[in-house]
């Protein structure tokens, strides 16, 4: 590799920023980039079907594997939500959805969507595929560990799905798994179901840790020449920060799951207080259920941002590329991501206002919660200012981006309601909360995923997804999702409680019944609309329009590989050398409306591009 990197004459510690800036003349120094510090990566190339496509060490294949398996669990979660909506909209229409089953569906839908779908898809799927390409690495730094990470996730999913088939079925304690009722008889799935759930979570955390170490070290220690942290696409920043959060938040979940399994199997009383059941004292006693809530939410709140931060990062890149404009306030965006990540560790008890706490404690957590709105709002303003007077391409990707911004603002504003203790207490057990977190954490990240799929599919498969089908998919999903969740806010205000299997003859009935039917119909429609994407992908793989190299005219490195789709090792013989940030769009004086990250300054010396 040494020959590749000796194209610069001088070898000192000097960054390209300090060289040649401001001078009008074109000097060779202008293109100076520090010499290589890291030897070229030693890769294991698979040579059989099994080592190439199944137990594969290529991060791109692992990313696709994560994506497919997460999508599978997502479809399971979707079907569960249909069954729930069937019961809520048309009570008793499907006889097999009994109260027990309903609670099991609620629980599994929540856990699957949050952990096994969104987290796995953003970090495992997009993280694996995009990080090495975007920072100019040949692969993740520990490819073997990366492979084990995916297969741990596979086993975790298998264990989770197995819980549908054990006696008693999966756990039905709600996705928060609050003890003591989680493991007490009478709760559906309090036997094998909860044990498999805990085991599956432990496996997931172990597998994720292996992947997470890869993402972090690849970003920190394996960037290509010229790629400084402040020249990374925001996608990488989002995934990187989310991974840091995950590495520090998942331990609490692991400990909680382990202690819960011991309470169930060994009869310890970590979380179990003295319990009277039908006049008899159970053998448990002396434990603290609130302890579990703290452990769970110390994981659970950062988890929200583990999903949201990659979405923030990805959307920033999509908007910038498709509005042909640099991202407004890049540094502000980076610090907002980091700041949101740090703050997310200090807000967890806002999920526990109704558990009862010292008023000052609630005051503290309400304050920190509202402070998070500041960096988040900065990001929203920056997205809008990026769009402002941009040369916007109104394609499917952009539609998803715009849909995301609207949905996210909507969900964020209801978050300000719920962050205040006195407003949260009456609303917290109503559909208002369901509407809030589905808007902000369900639909908004999903819009980003869809936008990202339409954006990066030409890279992964070399073909464009159908725009026509894409627009149908978007409009049905967007309008449908609003039809589901807007009325839910109203249901919450009139006091319809969440988690109820059926309303029976309660006073809400008159106004809630019709609305519940409407919501259910919309939910069936939105769920069905997702299959348009699956159809689109299958169709495109066969007959889609070939994309060629860099079809969106983007700047970041993933589009600049010698072959499309990129091969194992990504870059052929030579690693790319980076000279600028990935957001030089529509630069005055430049030949094209984009300047790729690998374009040296001497080639665009006539432009007014700033030193980045």
């Amino acid at each position, binding site marked *: 590799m040494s020959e590749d990197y000796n194209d610069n004459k001088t070898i000192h510690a000097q960054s390209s920023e300090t060289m040649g800036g401001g001078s009008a003349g074109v000097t060779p120094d202008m293109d100076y980039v*520090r010499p290589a510090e890291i030897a070229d990566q030693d890769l294991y190339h698979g040579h059989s079907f099994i080592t190439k496509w199944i137990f594969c060490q290529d991060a791109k294949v692992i990313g696709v594997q994560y994506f497919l398996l997460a999508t599978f669990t997502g479809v399971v979660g979707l079907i569960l939500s249909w069954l729930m909506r069937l019961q809520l909209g048309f009570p008793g229409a499907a006889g097999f959805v009994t109260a027990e089953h309903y609670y099991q569906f609620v629980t599994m839908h929540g856990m699957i969507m949050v952990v096994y779908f969104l987290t796995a898809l953003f970090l495992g799927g997009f993280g694996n595929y995009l990080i090495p390409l975007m920072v100019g690495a040949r692969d993740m730094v520990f490819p073997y560990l990366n492979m084990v990470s995916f297969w741990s996730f596979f086993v975790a999913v298998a264990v989770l799905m197995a819980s549908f088939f054990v006696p008693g079925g999966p756990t039905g304690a709600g996705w928060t798994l609050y003890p003591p009722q989680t493991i007490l008889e009478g709760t559906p799935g309090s036997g094998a179901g909860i044990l498999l759930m805990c085991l599956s979570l432990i496996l997931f955390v172990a597998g994720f840790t292996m992947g997470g*170490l890869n993402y972090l*070290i690849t970003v920190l*220690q394996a960037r290509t020449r010229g790629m400084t942290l402040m020249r990374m696409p925001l996608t990488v920043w989002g995934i990187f920060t989310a991974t840091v959060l995950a590495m520090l938040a998942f331990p609490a979940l692991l400990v909680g799951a382990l202690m819960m399994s011991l309470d169930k199997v060994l009869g*310890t009383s*970590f979380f179990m207080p003295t319990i009277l059941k039908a006049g008899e004292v159970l053998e448990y006693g002396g434990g603290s259920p609130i302890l579990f809530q703290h452990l769970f939410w110390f994981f659970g709140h950062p988890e929200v941002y583990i999903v949201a931060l990659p979405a923030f990062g990805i959307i920033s890149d999509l908007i910038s590329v498709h509005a042909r404009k640099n991202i407004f306030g890049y540094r502000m965006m980076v610090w907002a991501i980091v700041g949101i990540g740090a703050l997310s560790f200090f807000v967890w008890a806002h999920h526990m206002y109704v558990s009862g706490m010292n008023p000052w404690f609630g005051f503290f957590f309400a304050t920190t919660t509202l402070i998070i709105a500041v960096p988040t709002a900065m990001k929203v303003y920056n997205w809008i200012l990026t769009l402002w007077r941009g040369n916007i391409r109104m394609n499917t990707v952009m539609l998803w981006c715009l849909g995301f911004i609207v949905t996210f603002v909507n969900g964020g504003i209801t978050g300000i309601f719920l962050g205040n203790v006195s407003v949260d207490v009456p609303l917290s057990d109503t559909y208002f909360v369901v509407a809030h977190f589905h808007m902000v954490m369900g639909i908004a990240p999903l819009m980003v995923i869809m936008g990202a799929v339409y954006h990066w599919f030409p890279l992964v498969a070399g073909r464009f997804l159908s725009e026509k089908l894409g627009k149908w998919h978007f409009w049905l999903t967007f309008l449908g999702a609003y039809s589901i969740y807007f009325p839910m806010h109203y249901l919450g205000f009139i006091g319809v409680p969440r988690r109820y299997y059926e309303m029976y003859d309660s006073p809400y009935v008159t106004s809630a019944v019709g609305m519940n039917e409407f919501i259910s119909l919309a939910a069936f429609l939105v769920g069905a609309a997702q299959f348009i994407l699956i159809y689109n992908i299958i169709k495109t793989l066969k007959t889609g329009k070939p994309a060629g190299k860099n079809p969106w005219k983007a700047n970041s490195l993933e589009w600049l590989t010698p072959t499309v789709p990129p091969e194992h090792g990504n870059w052929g013989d030579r690693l790319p050398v980076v000279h600028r940030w990935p957001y030089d769009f529509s630069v005055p004086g430049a030949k094209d409306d984009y300047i790729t990250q690998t374009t040296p300054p001497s080639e665009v010396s006539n432009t007014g591009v700033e030193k980045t």
Partner: protein
Amino acid sequence: MSEPKIEGIELKPGFKGMAEDTGSDQTMFKGVHWGKAMMWIFLLSDTFIFSCFLIAYMKGRGSTPVEWPNPSEVFALDAFGVPVPLLLIAIMTFVLITSSGTMALAVKYGYEKNRKMCGWLVLATAIGGLTFVGMQAFEWSKLIHEGVRPWENPFGAAQFGSFFFMITGFHGTHVSIGVIFLFIYAYKVFAGHYDQQKRGWFTSMKGDYVEIEILGLYWHFVDLVWVFIFAFFYLW
């Protein structure tokens, strides 16, 4: 795995140097091996796991209505007919801390490419760890004979047994995993895998003595965690 080299790059000391490294391209921690950086971050994550355990222990101990057993009596060992408080634990702690010392020496000899010394010291560390696990098994069986169970114990609050077995068990698992790897690495050192840069069994990546240091980081961490467990369980 790549061996980082930093030819022609002058590293500046102090905060300014740190800021410069952070702002530079390619690597954040100049010249730091990927595996070593990974181990540090893994240990940070593991710290959070043990912190959760210990905080849960404090909360559990604080919220149980039954009196907590007196550790000086529960963990006493009869020596020549006299109950000596914390005798076994003191020996265990001494053995584990000593094994940290041999580990540090193994790292030193590893970087000096002194195959024999490095191998013996890694082996000594492994034996120290094994001794620790053995004594822990003895302590567990003694407590179990006395009637301590995860769900009850004759000395007081049931949570005492629960937290004791869970936390020392989790730590003991860490030590056991470390011991297994120490034995494997001792074999690899003696067989000269690091001198010949032989490719690993699973990862097919070239071996290097830096792996001894990475394992050493893990081992020191496990010892450090023991110090906290010792303080929280046996001295409080």
